[in-house]
């Protein structure tokens, strides 16, 4: 902290989800590639600590979900602890979230680490361990204090943590809040996957809590929370590194500064830093009616439009539409794999049989009508038909398998979820 300017500098990041399971449905890569991605995420975490050191921050704030309790490995913990220790006197303040909650066997507990034969947390790391909010002073700057708490289990908690006044260090002029929870009105992709909110709160509640800055965790997307006057009350840094195509685009750590403004009040500025060289890019391309060359061109343009950087990003390409019968999308996909190493393709296309006219007297026409009716019926029954347990997609598969067999005398078995 520069005494002349009175500026306090911090680095905030959360939702790193180290050693978490990477689902194929969100990251359609091989198991080995997913293992590689986990290693990359750990490297991004270590890079964040490196940035904290190079930027000479006064504190590192981690408001939750640093790892997943069920799957975190001893070797990863060792690297996390060593990395924090290398920061020396710079305090690392951690508020355990729902995935790395402070349970009975939490690795935030030195006794547990000791029991596992792992290194214990260095002195510069402070972990909030109680479910009630507590406050800790900055070891070097007594006018800076941090308030936070730990989530004790991973299940959603409906109680509003900010509904009642939160203790602050009244002696400190800068008070940080570290909070892992769901803010009302968040509109990120992960909101719709959330079964129930975790420790919900509103922006108003946050403003009323009167903290200089709130480092927020839990949600994946970078989101700033502003006061009625437009000042920054706090921010979600979002996930530090993407883990699938529900975490698209750049991911950030936040480099924040708190300093006195012209009126003598503290003002916070935050600068998002993109530390992961790999972005998740989702591209959806409709290849209906296109020739092979046109398909390739369309896909290339779509990837470019989405800002996909072919040499570094992981591109999830969703192919859709009905392709011309004289084209072969699998050949195009092969070419894509040849061109772009990091492209994962999900092929939802179908041959364009149904645009043709069928003579209603033929078996073929009856087959198409029958299966389309069956599919409609299945959709009307909420995805399941009344006679069988096959869902609408399965019936559609059957329709195209039948037409494949009739038209091409061969069947291309589909391999999509």
């Amino acid at each position: 902290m520069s005494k002349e300017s009175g500026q306090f500098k911090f680095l905030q990041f959360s939702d790193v989800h180290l050693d978490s399971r990477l689902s194929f449905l969100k990251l359609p890569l091989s198991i080995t590639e997913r293992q590689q991605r986990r290693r990359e995420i750990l490297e991004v975490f270590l890079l964040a600590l490196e940035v904290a050191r190079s930027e000479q921050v006064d504190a590192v704030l981690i408001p939750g979900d640093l790892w997943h309790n069920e799957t975190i490995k001893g070797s990863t913990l060792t690297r996390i602890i060593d990395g924090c220790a290398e920061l020396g006197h710079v305090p690392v303040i951690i508020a355990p979230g729902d995935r790395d909650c402070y349970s009975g066997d939490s690795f935030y507990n030195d006794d547990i680490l000791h029991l596992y034969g792992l290194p214990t947390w260095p002195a510069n790391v402070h972990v909030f361990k109680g479910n009630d909010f507590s406050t800790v002073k900055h070891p070097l700057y007594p006018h800076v204090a941090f308030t936070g708490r730990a989530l004790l289990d991973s299940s959603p908690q409906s109680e509003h943590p900010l509904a009642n006044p939160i203790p602050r260090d009244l002696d400190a002029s800068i008070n940080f809040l570290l909070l892992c929870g769901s803010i009302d009105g968040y509109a990120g992709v992960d909101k719709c996957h959330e079964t129930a909110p975790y420790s919900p709160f509103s922006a108003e509640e946050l403003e009323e809590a009167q903290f200089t800055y709130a480092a927020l965790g839990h949600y994946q997307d970078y989101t700033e929370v502003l006061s009625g006057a437009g000042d920054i009350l706090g921010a979600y840094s979002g996930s530090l590194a993407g883990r699938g195509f529900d975490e698209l685009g750049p991911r950030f750590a936040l480099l924040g500064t708190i300093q006195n403004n012209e009126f003598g009040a503290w003002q916070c500025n935050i600068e998002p830093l993109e530390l992961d060289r790999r972005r998740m890019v989702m591209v959806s391309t409709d290849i209906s009616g296109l020739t092979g060359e046109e398909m390739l061109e369309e896909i290339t343009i779509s990837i470019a439009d989405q800002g996909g950087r072919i040499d570094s990003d992981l591109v999830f390409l969703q192919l859709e539409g009905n392709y011309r019968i004289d084209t072969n999308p699998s050949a195009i996909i092969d070419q894509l794999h040849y061109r772009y190493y990091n492209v994962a393709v999900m092929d939802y296309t179908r041959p364009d049989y149904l645009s043709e006219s069928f003579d209603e007297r033929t078996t073929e026409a009856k087959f198409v009508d029958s299966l389309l009716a069956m599919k409609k019926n299945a959709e009307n029954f909420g995805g399941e038909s009344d006679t069988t347990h096959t869902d609408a997609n399965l019936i559609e598969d059957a329709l195209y398998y039948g037409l494949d067999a009739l038209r091409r005398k061969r069947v291309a078995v589909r391999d999509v979820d």
Partner: protein
Amino acid sequence: MWIERIDFAGYGNISGEKIEFKDNKLNLVVESNEYGKSTIASAVWAILYDFPDTGAQPGEREARKPSAVSKMPYIASIDITTNGTRLKVIRDFSDGAVQIVDRDQKNKDVTKQFRGPSGEDQVGLKLTGMTREMFRSTCFVGQRELDEHAFSGDSDLTSLFQGIADTSSSATNAGTAIEVLEDALHHFPYKGKRNKVEAVMRDLEGQYYELSDKIKKLESDKSQIGVDIRRVVKLGSEITDDTEQSGANEYFELCLEAADTDNRLIQAQTTIAKVSEFRQEMSSLGTMDGFPLTSVKRVEELWTRRQSRHADYDRYLQEMAPQLREYESHEKHTQDRFDGLNEFTTDEGKRVGVLAVSLYNMQAELEDLCQRRGDLDDSGESAPAPVLVQQSLDETDHENARSYIALIESFKEAITEAESKVDRNRMLIFDIEEQRKTKKVMFMMPGSNKKKEAEQAEAEIEKSRKQIDELNTKIRGLEARLDVLGQKIGMSSGRQLTAQLTGQSTPQSGKGIDARSSEGLDQLIAARQTSLSQIQAELEPFFVKAGRQAWDINPESATELADHITKYIEEQRQINSTFSAVKQSKQQLEFLANEIKVIDDQLKEIFSNAHLESSENIEEMHQQFFSKLASFHRWQVMSTELRKMESDMSSGFTPDELPPQVERLETIRMEIFARMQELIEQYPVIAEMAPPMSPPRRMNLGGSYSSKMYLDDLRRERDELTVRVRTVSMNHDQTYLTAVEELEQVSRELNNVRRAKTALELARDTLHKLSSETYVDWSTKLNEIAKEMIVNIGLDFDDLHFDSELRITARKKSDGQEINASNISNQLSTGTKEQLHWLARMVVSRFLSKGNPLPIVLDEPFSEADDERFLRVMQFLLDVLVVNHQVIIFSCHQQRHHWLISQLEPAQHAKIDFARRASLRG
């Protein structure tokens, strides 16, 4: 539907033309090849349906485009009458645009009526009631489609009808599609292999349950860790002890921790040392990149072969050594004697011999000519004054002397003539020899046997020489007689007498003769000298080759050279003949030596690729290679081991990350020992106190459980739990996440396979059910139409029946006998069979066209039928088909169709119309 005419603005190779067809007629387009018959036929489909979209591939649209030269738009139209409406369909093929006008309503545009709900082009579909492919398969009969073999089995026709009933496309029928789906179920693709879908599912289910059990076990272990941890915490709180014991406990724990740290430290240091050692050793082995490992086997093979060849070589050499020495001694002796002749061939030897003889003859002749020339000069310059001999010689001697002189003159003339002959022949031989050398003439050329000619010339020369010799002998005899006569009258020689007698008799003419002789001789001498020089020039390279002096080429040296060459070759032949076996062995040795050299070269190349130090000693290089191979193996083992170590994250760190960890562990270790020292200083007895783990449970003498023992047990339990927690967590770390992700993958694959199986089965079963229903439905309708049609046709059958599989059965009118599909093929005559098949086809066509009879187009039908059959089928078409359908036939067999006309009844004849292309302007 009736096609009235087709107008071609520009379509294929037809531009600005039209063709007209009649209704209820058999329209014959009988023209030679390249007339455009197929183009006209294709235009019918193209105008009604447009070309099928072939995407980027060049399709029929491109193929039928009129040439740029014609400058005509790519447009064609067709005039049709359907259900009493007269329409014109105009198609612009450049973009597929279509316009339909009603010709009865002043060409009112009615295109809208022929579009589908989304505005799509449905002209063909609405006019014919069929899709393009169905229309083609029903109303178009291509070349050879009517041949007997196409109708020979019922299966073909049944599958044709089934195909029409099953799909609008021409690809296949439901039966084949069901087989395809069955095949997909029986050969289900999974991980690059094909297996029964059930087997794939079983395999995946096996994996699924195995992984599930593994995960359950790991999760159970993990929950047990939770229990263990709680227990350890509880134990910690239960273990209460006095200060000394507490110190002892801490000391003991520190001992454990120190041991653990030492253990990790040793492990890390060992790894670092090992990695460093490996790297150093690998570095000392030098670069092994590009070592031709794949060539090792080759080197071994080559080396074995080399050794084998060497052994053979040595054995041969040993076995043949005495003979070889002898052979070489002889050879050397010959070489020494005939130094420089070892390069000569037999032909060259012969050639030198011929040239030597020629040189000798030429030299002799030249000398003779020079002498004669000298004599002539002598006789001219120092002739004695003529002496009158008439008085001295008697008349008889005088006459004799004159006769002798005359004879001598005539003999000399004969000699001159013979010499000219010799010259001519020699020139001939020379020319032939020159031609042979320049290969202008081959001796084997027919009609000019130059070899024979040369031999004849040689014989002529020989003959002329003999003649010259004889004549010279005679002259010398006559001159001797003249000498005797001259001496009789006191003259010194016969030459004086001759001069006197000839001078007296014909002094002028005598002078003239002398003058002519001297000129002729000079010419001859010059010619001989030229020849002589030529022969010497020809001999010169041989002398040079033999290493002899080329400026000293004379008959003797040439003869000597020829003689030496002949002798050398002869001796060499004798040596070779005597030592043929030895020579063969020598050749064998040379062959072996050469082979060894080739092997050595190949080895050297491989050794060079292996970056060995270049050396002439192949044995040394071979040794070097295998020594490097051993190093390479070592290098490879170390490289693999190193990679393994480098990727080994079991300690949580890669080897390169270990050094700072070692430092950290060393610090921890020092801290532990410092603390231990502190404790010993504080409680000196603790180092000697029994550790809590040992001895194990024990009872005091009274059999009661002492508090010390209880505490020991608690500590022991705590330590055991600690070990278990660490072991289980390590196992969990290593396997859990991967197992979970594998389970997800297997589960996903299993779901997809199950889904694919169900979908394939659903497709198969639905197709099977619907095709059966379609066939039954069709058969009912087709039977109704067939019943109606067969009455009107008047065949010998009163019923044509389609069964539930669309197989046909016909019933004879005469005896009610039912003939099934296979018997139709086997028992009925070709004509009847074809009529029935035609009928069946027309029934299908009538059904599909919804009662609107469609035109039938035949492209070169019956091309392989004999005349009788051709006539019968055409009569059937005229009598039966043309009644309800417009028939258009394209053919190139003009004569056959003219013959057909001649065979038809007038009524049948009237139903034929010959159509031709005509200009649109006309």
